[in-house]
């Protein structure tokens, strides 16, 4: 067993390596750091630009292979290079990772739970008003791109706050700057800040999970084993939960891995729109700044997260389904 798990992890490592290299190469060949400096006012002399670029390993006059080799050597030793403003990529990443992970974690967990519950209700009340409502709402959410959803939420929050006459729900940043008070006050503050951005991710997750849970549950509703359970005298409710929902959860494990990429895309918009200084915001800004190394770092971060999600979903699958366990 161990050996096979190892093989899987090795495969993942290879995928991560290749993906990151691909990300770096794409970034290095499509972004032009030189332009970033050239556009400064007043334009710096070419020689000094070249010197800076060389120092940052960003000079487009250096052959791509050499830059790549230099970068790769650094990465192997744990050094992700310098940002275009000559700070450490690793340090910046360390600061920002937690912010993104917090959003992703809360967004996924709450979204999956709500989605599974809604999908279950929707399926057992198929074609009733509650099913129609849930279906319609989830289609509505799924049809709204995250950036639009986030903006709409923001507008909604402003309206609520205006109506309440106070900042009931803050919607920019992670904390209120210069907040006085004890740790509890701070915790509440952070919690309040988390609500709206998490909601912007959670809604999409919940909608997606509810659709899949609904159809998985519908597949299972007609299953023979539910009939068997009922034939032993089990009432409809318990049979649906113990035998139906339990089995219909299995495909959700796969969905978990699959939606991670989507979620990480969504997080970019959420961070950008709600002013969270996470990886996503950094990524978008870095492209604007032609910051090759920072972009490569985001690719690495994403790849690792997606494969962790893949591994977790495999494990969840094995836990849920004895048929794939051994």
């Amino acid at each position, binding site marked *: 067993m161990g050996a096979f798990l190892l093989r899987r992890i090795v495969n*993942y490592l290879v*995928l*991560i390596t*290749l*993906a990151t290299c*691909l*990300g770096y190469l*794409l*970034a290095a060949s*499509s*972004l*032009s750091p030189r332009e970033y400096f050239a556009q400064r006012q007043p334009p710096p002399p070419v020689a000094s630009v070249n010197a800076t670029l060389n120092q940052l390993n960003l000079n487009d006059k250096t052959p791509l292979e050499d830059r790549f080799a230099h970068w790769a050597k650094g990465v192997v030793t744990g050094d992700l290079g310098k940002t275009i403003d000559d700070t450490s990529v690793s340090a910046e990443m360390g600061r920002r990772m937690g912010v993104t992970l917090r959003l992703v974690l809360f967004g996924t967990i709450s979204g999956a739970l709500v989605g599974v519950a809604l999908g279950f209700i929707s399926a057992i009340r198929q074609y009733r008003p509650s099913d129609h409502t849930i279906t*319609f709402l989830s*289609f*509505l959410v*799924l*049809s*709204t*791109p*995250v*950036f*639009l959803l986030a*903006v*709409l939420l923001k*507008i909604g929050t*402003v309206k609520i706050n205006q109506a309440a006459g106070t900042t009931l729900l803050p919607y920019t940043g992670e904390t209120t700057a210069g907040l006085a008070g004890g740790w509890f006050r701070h915790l509440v503050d952070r919690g309040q800040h988390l609500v709206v951005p998490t909601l912007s991710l959670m809604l999409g997750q919940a909608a997606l999970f509810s659709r*899949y849970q609904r*159809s*998985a549950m*519908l*597949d299972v509703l*007609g299953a*023979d084993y539910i*009939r068997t359970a009922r034939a032993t005298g089990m009432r409809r409710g318990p049979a649906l939960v113990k035998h139906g929902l339990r089995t219909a959860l299995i*495909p959700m494990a*796969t*969905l978990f*891995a*699959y939606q*991670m*990429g*989507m979620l*990480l*895309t969504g997080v*970019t*918009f959420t961070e*950008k*729109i709600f002013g969270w200084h996470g990886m996503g915001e950094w*990524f*978008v800004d870095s*492209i604007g700044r032609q910051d090759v190394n920072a*972009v490569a770092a*985001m*690719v690495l971060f*994403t*790849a690792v997260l*997606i*494969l962790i*999600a*893949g591994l977790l979903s495999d494990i969840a699958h094995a836990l849920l389904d004895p048929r794939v366990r051994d």
Partner: protein
Amino acid sequence: MTAEELVLAQEESAMTAPEPVTLGRGRIVLRRFLRRKLAVAGLVILVLMFALAFIGPYLSSWNYKDQDYNNFLTGPSATHWFGTTQIGSDVYAQTMRGLQKSLIIGLLAAVLSTGVAGIVGATAGYFGGWTDRVLMWFVDLLLVLPSFLILAITSPLFHGRTWLLFVILLAAFNWMVTARMVRGLARSLREREFVTAAEVMGVHPLRIITRHLLPNMASLLIIDATLNVGGTIIAETSLSYFGFGVQPPDVSLGTIIADGTDSALNYPWLFYPAGVLLILTVMAVAFVGDGLRDAMDDAAGTASSTSTPGDAA
């Protein structure tokens, strides 16, 4: 077993009732589709959207590039139906143009990506072995990199070039999940007896793929292409929102929304028309896709849609 008998009984009522026997499959699908209100509503909305996108611009005298120096940031009026922007552009004209762009890009990219997915998936699934392993490993690799990331990174490459390049890239990073699904289906179809029958008859593998596999996956592919239209529209507008997609002076719904975001509270006309059209379009596509799925599944009696997404990574 009841389920079987029930299905049998119900199916028979559908299949062998005297009248429908003569109906072709297309008509059966159509009839079932038309019975779903939401799907029909979606289709109507979609048709209206296309009409709006392609006829709409001619209804107003303003062009999306025009600027009206007498009207900056004015609300909807008889001259400017959806109002004007900070620089005096007509929001109606811009929205129509944006809708047109988003629709075309979405449609083309979706069809392209489904096509690629069909070919790659069917090949991998049918031949299996090394072909399968190599292709699927490549798909895994692409799945590790969310398409948004790659497209954002490569966006400087298509600045200033034709938007068709953007379409191709959009499609190039969108086909993987479908390809996995198609592969799964192709693998199960390959085990079906009619494929075995064709093989032992000596039918050429390529002919088996084109004549037996792909037609039997047609409903999946059609549904997928439909739903992909929604997906690619979302992808396009998202990228454009950050300036990674459609470039000025051209507009798409995404760029319009991006421009209007900051003033959404005070100048709602800058934001809402594009936003509402975008949501309506994608939702209409989703309803049509869903309706098609139900209609085709019922009519075919074969598993054409998968209830679980392709297993990524």
